[in-house]
């Protein structure tokens, strides 16, 4: 799963019948691990009820299809949780190269001493 921020919603009238009635959100990834898609945005199905501006956890791949109860949905990203806060400890944050890129920190980021 990855961390992302909801930056918008996507509407459509002509779409795959399995997507009828599903809410689609535009998500800006804050973290990323898939080497083969190096992208700056993601469209995810929302069964949880996230709103624009919130940080979310996005599930990718096959498990995202099961979120809608059926493998036949043409979906590969689905919102799994709405983030309240992200917490790290000072010692962990001094390790090299784990910080989020500039402007890509979660809104609810907390650092606390060990």
């Amino acid at each position, binding site marked *: *799963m*990855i*961390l992302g921020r909801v930056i918008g919603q996507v509407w459509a009238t002509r779409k795959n019948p399995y997507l009828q009635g599903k809410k689609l959100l535009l998500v800006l990834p804050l*973290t*990323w*691990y898939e*080497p083969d898609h190096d992208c700056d945005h993601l469209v995810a199905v929302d*069964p*949880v*009820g996230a709103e624009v501006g919130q940080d979310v*956890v996005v*599930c*990718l*791949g*096959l*498990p*995202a299809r*099961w*979120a809608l*109860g059926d493998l036949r949905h043409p979906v590969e990203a*689905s919102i*799994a*949780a*709405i*983030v*309240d*806060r*992200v*917490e*790290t*400890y000072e*010692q*962990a*944050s001094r*390790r*090299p*190269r*784990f910080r*989020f890129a500039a402007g890509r920190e979660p809104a609810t980021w907390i650092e606390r001493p060990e």
Partner: protein
Amino acid sequence: MNRGVVIGEVWATRKAPRLLDRKLLLVALTGADPVAERFTGRVVVAYDGLDAGIGDRVIVAFGSGARNAVAPGSRDVLVDAAVVQVIEGEGPRNGP
């Protein structure tokens, strides 16, 4: 599966149904050298069934196999990355 270091926790109250009972960890994936602990810059949110703590070195399983860490054989769980092992030691030789 990949090695990584736990760098933080993610707190959420509204979650998909089967994720309710466990915490989610932020794991930074590391490179091939176990001594230098170089980070690849990739960070993943992983389900934690083992109570790993911040600073622990762990192995993360990806894809649909990660759901077996939540409940073996389950299909309706929204998890694509899970901590499956907390590393105690590793090296070029065989274990003890």
